[in-house]
C-alpha cells in the first residue's frame, strides 16, 4: 500500500518537476508576465464565482466558503488565508531557510497584535495611562501607522532578545525553549491585568482609518474586501523582500549554516550571527501578521494566542514544503481554507493536521511543493544512510 502511494507520488513529482523545469526555461519576460497575472488574479479572488452585481458562476461559486449554510464570509476567509501566508513566509525564514525549529512563533504574532492593541486602542490601559500622565483628550491614541512601526520594531527586538540566549543551544532544545516562550507571552498577557486588560482583552483596535466605526469609508465594519487587499499587498511586498534576501549573501549564509554549521564556521560564516538574523526577521514578519490580525478584528484576548496555533503554523510550513515560498503559502492556504469550506468535518481538523504532518514527514519530508535544494539535502542524507546504516 505504502509502496504504491510512494510510486504514485514519485511519478507526480516527476511531472511537477517537469513543470518546474519548463517554467524555469521560459524567457524572463514571460515569467514576469505570468507573475503579474497571478498577482492580479489573487487581488480579484473576492469575486471568485460571484461577480459584482450578484452574478453567480456555477461551479466556481462552490469554492467559496459562503456557498454553504453556516459558512463564513468569503473575503473574511481570504483575509485569514493572507495573514497565515504572511506567517508562513516569516516562519519559513526561520525553519526553511535557517533550519531552526521555532515552536513559539505565536508569541511574536501576539506581540505584534498587542503592540497595536496596547498603543492604538483607547480602551487599553497603556493609552489610558498616557492620557492621564500627559493630560491628553479621551480620544487620543497612537496612530495606526506608528503602531505598525512599533509592532515591527518590538517584535524584532523580542526576536533578538529571545534568540540571544537560546540560539547557542542545540536545535532541539531551541524548539522546546521557544515553545515555552510562546506560552510565557500568553500567560503574561493574561495575568498582567493592569497592562493588557488581562483575560478581558482589548477592543476598538484601530485600522488604517482609525478606530472601527461606521464612518470609515474604506476599512469599515461590514465589508472585508479592503482588509483582504491590504493584507495581500503586505504579503506581496514581503514575499519579494524575502526572495531578495534568500538570494543574497545572507541567504547563502543561511543555507551554509543549515547544511553544516561547523563547515560554515570554518569557511568564515559566523553561524550565530546569521541565525540571530533569521530569527529576528522571522519574528518581525510574525509581528506584522499579528498587527494585521489585531487591526482587522479590532479585538484581541489572550486565548487567541494559544500553543495550538504555533503547531498549526509549523504544520503549514512543513506540509507545504519548507524552504519554498510557494509551498509554504500553499500549506497556509490549505490549512486555513479547508476547515472553513468543509465545516462538517471541521471538528476533525486537528486529527487531520496531525495525520498530515506524520504522513508528509514519512512519505515526503520535503513537503508538497518542495524546495529543490532541500530535496537534494534530504536525498544526500538518505544516500549516506544506505551506504552506512548508522544511527541518526
Amino acid at each position, binding site marked *: 500500500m505504502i509502496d504504491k502511494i510512494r510510486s*504514485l507520488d514519485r511519478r507526480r513529482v516527476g511531472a511537477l518537476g517537469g513543470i518546474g523545469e519548463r517554467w524555469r526555461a521560459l524567457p524572463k519576460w514571460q515569467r514576469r508576465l505570468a507573475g503579474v497575472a497571478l498577482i492580479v488574479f489573487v487581488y480579484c479572488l473576492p469575486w471568485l464565482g460571484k461577480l459584482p452585481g450578484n452574478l453567480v458562476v456555477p*461551479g466556481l461559486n*462552490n*469554492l467559496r466558503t459562503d*456557498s454553504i449554510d453556516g459558512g463564513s464570509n468569503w473575503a473574511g476567509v481570504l483575509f485569514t488565508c493572507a495573514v497565515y501566508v504572511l506567517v508562513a513566509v516569516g516562519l519559513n525564514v526561520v525553519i526553511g531557510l535557517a533550519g531552526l525549529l521555532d515552536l513559539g512563533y505565536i508569541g511574536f504574532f501576539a506581540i505584534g497584535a498587542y503592540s497595536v492593541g496596547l498603543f492604538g486602542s483607547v480602551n487599553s490601559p497603556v493609552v489610558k495611562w498616557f492620557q492621564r500622565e500627559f493630560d491628553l483628550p479621551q480620544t487620543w491614541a497612537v496612530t495606526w501607522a506608528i503602531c505598525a512601526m512599533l509592532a515591527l520594531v518590538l517584535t524584532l527586538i523580542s526576536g533578538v532578545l529571545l534568540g540571544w540566549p537560546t540560539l547557542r543551544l542545540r536545535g532541539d532544545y531551541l524548539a522546546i525553549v521557544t515553545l515555552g516562550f510562546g506560552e510565557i507571552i500568553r500567560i503574561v498577557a493574561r495575568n498582567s491585568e493592569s497592562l493588557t486588560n488581562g483575560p478581558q482583552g482589548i477592543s476598538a483596535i484601530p485600522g488604517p482609518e482609525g478606530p472601527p466605526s461606521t464612518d470609515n469609508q474604506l476599512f469599515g*465594519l461590514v465589508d472585508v474586501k479592503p482588509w483582504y487587499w491590504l493584507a495581500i499587498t503586505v504579503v506581496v511586498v514581503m514575499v519579494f523582500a524575502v526572495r531578495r534576501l534568500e538570494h543574497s549573501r545572507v541567504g547563502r549564509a543561511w543555507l551554509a549554516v543549515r547544511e553544516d554549521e561547523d563547515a560554515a564556521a570554518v569557511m568564515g560564516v559566523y553561524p550565530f550571527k546569521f541565525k540571530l538574523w533569521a530569527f529576528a526577521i522571522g519574528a518581525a514578519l510574525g509581528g506584522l501578521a499579528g498587527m494585521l490580525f489585531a487591526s482587522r*478584528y479590532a479585538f484581541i*484576548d489572550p486565548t*487567541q494566542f494559544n500553543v495550538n496555533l504555533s503547531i498549526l503554523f509549523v504544520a503549514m510550513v512543513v506540509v507545504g514544503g519548507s524552504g519554498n515560498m510557494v509551498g509554504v503559502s500553499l500549506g497556509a492556504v490549505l490549512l486555513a481554507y479547508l476547515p472553513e469550506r468543509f465545516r462538517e468535518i*471541521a471538528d476533525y481538523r486537528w486529527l487531520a493536521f496531525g495525520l498530515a504532518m506524520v504522513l508528509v514527514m514519512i512519505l515526503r519530508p520535503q513537503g508538497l511543493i518542495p524546495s529543490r535544494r532541500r530535496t537534494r539535502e534530504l536525498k544526500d542524507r538518505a544516500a549516506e544512510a544506505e551506504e552506512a546504516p548508522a544511527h541518526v
Partner: protein
Amino acid sequence: MRRSYSRALGTAALAAVLVAAAGCQDTSGDDTASGECGGKIAIFGAFSGDNAGLVLPSLNGAKLAIKQHNDANADCQITLQEFDTQGDAAQATPIANEVAGDASFLGVIGGHFSAETDATMPVYEAAGLAMVSPSATRTDLTSKGNKSFFRVVGNDATQGGAVSTYVKSQNATKVFMIDDGSAYGAGITAELGKNLGPLLAGSDKIQERQSQFDPTIAKIKAAGADFVFYGGYTREAAPLVRQMRAAGIKAKFVGPDGLYDPAFPEGASGGAEGSIITCPCLPADKAGGSFAADYQKAYGQAPGSYGAEGFDAAQIYVDAFKDGKKSRADILAFVKAYDKQGVSKYVKFAENGDVDPTKVVIWSYQIKGTAFEPLQELKLS
C-alpha cells in the same frame, strides 16, 4: 496497466469531487421567505470544540422554540441558521460580516461567550441587526454604548452579588476565593470580592489545565476558610475540589454556573458532594410552561446551562415575526420594547441592553451524587 488504472482512478475521484461540489451548491439558493410572515435569523457560538458542552443546550433551546413555532404555524416559517465559531473571536468576526452582509438575516442570537460578543458587537450594530445573547455575562459588554446588544441573562455582577449574599446568609466568617484567570472566572470572582469586604480571608489564581493544587490547598488551610469560592469551569474545579477534600478541608465549596455541568460531579468522583452551585437558571419544574418536559422529550436530557435562555432568545424573534415585523429596524425596535414572561425569567430589557436587573433569578443548587438539587432562590443583593 498500472498507469492507466491510476489515471482512471484520478479521473473518477475528480469527477466525484465535482459532482459532490455541484450537489452542495443549491442548498442555500433561495433565501427570503416569500409570504406575509417569517424570515431568517442566525445563531452563533461554540457549537464544536472544547467548550461546546456549555453552549449546545442553548442552541437546542433555540431550535426547540423555532420548531414549536414552525410546527404550529405552517404559513409562517422561521429559519434558524447555525454558525459555529468554536468560541474564537477571530472566527466569529467573518461570520458576523457574512450575516451582516446578507440582507435575508433579520436578527441574531449570540454570542455565547463574552469575547466573541465583544468582538462582533460593532459589526452587528453597524448593520442594524438586533443581537440577543443567551449567555454572555461579562459586565462591561453593556457599558459600551452599543445600541443593538441585548442579553436575557444576568451579568457577572448580579451573580457575584448573589453569591455574596448567599455566603453572608450562611454566616460565613472566612471566605477564600480562587479563580482560573479566564475572562469569565476572574470577572465573577472580582465582583464577589468587591462585595465580600472583611469576610475575604485570602485568594489565589490558578492556571487553566492545572491538575495539582498543593500550594493553593496550603493557602486555604493557612487561611482557615469555612467557604471556598471557585470562579471558573469544570476542567480545573473537579481536581481542585477533590484534592481539597482529600487533604481534609471541610470548607463549603461554592461555584458559579460554569460548574453547572454534569461533568463536574463526575470528574470529582464524589469530591464535589454537597457543593453549592449558583446559576441564573430556573429549576426544571419552576421554568414556565412545559419547556423542561419538551426539552427532555426532544433531546433526551434535561436542559443544562442556558437551555432556557436560548429558548427565550429565540422566542423574542418568534414573537417579532408573529407581530409581522419584516425589517431589521422594526425587529430591533421590537426587541428593545419586548416585555413578556419567558421560561427563564421575565424578559424586559433595560436601556443599556441588560435584562431588567430586578427580574434576574438566581438559584442555588446542591450536588447530590451526580445530580444538581435545587435549594433556594437567592436574593440578589
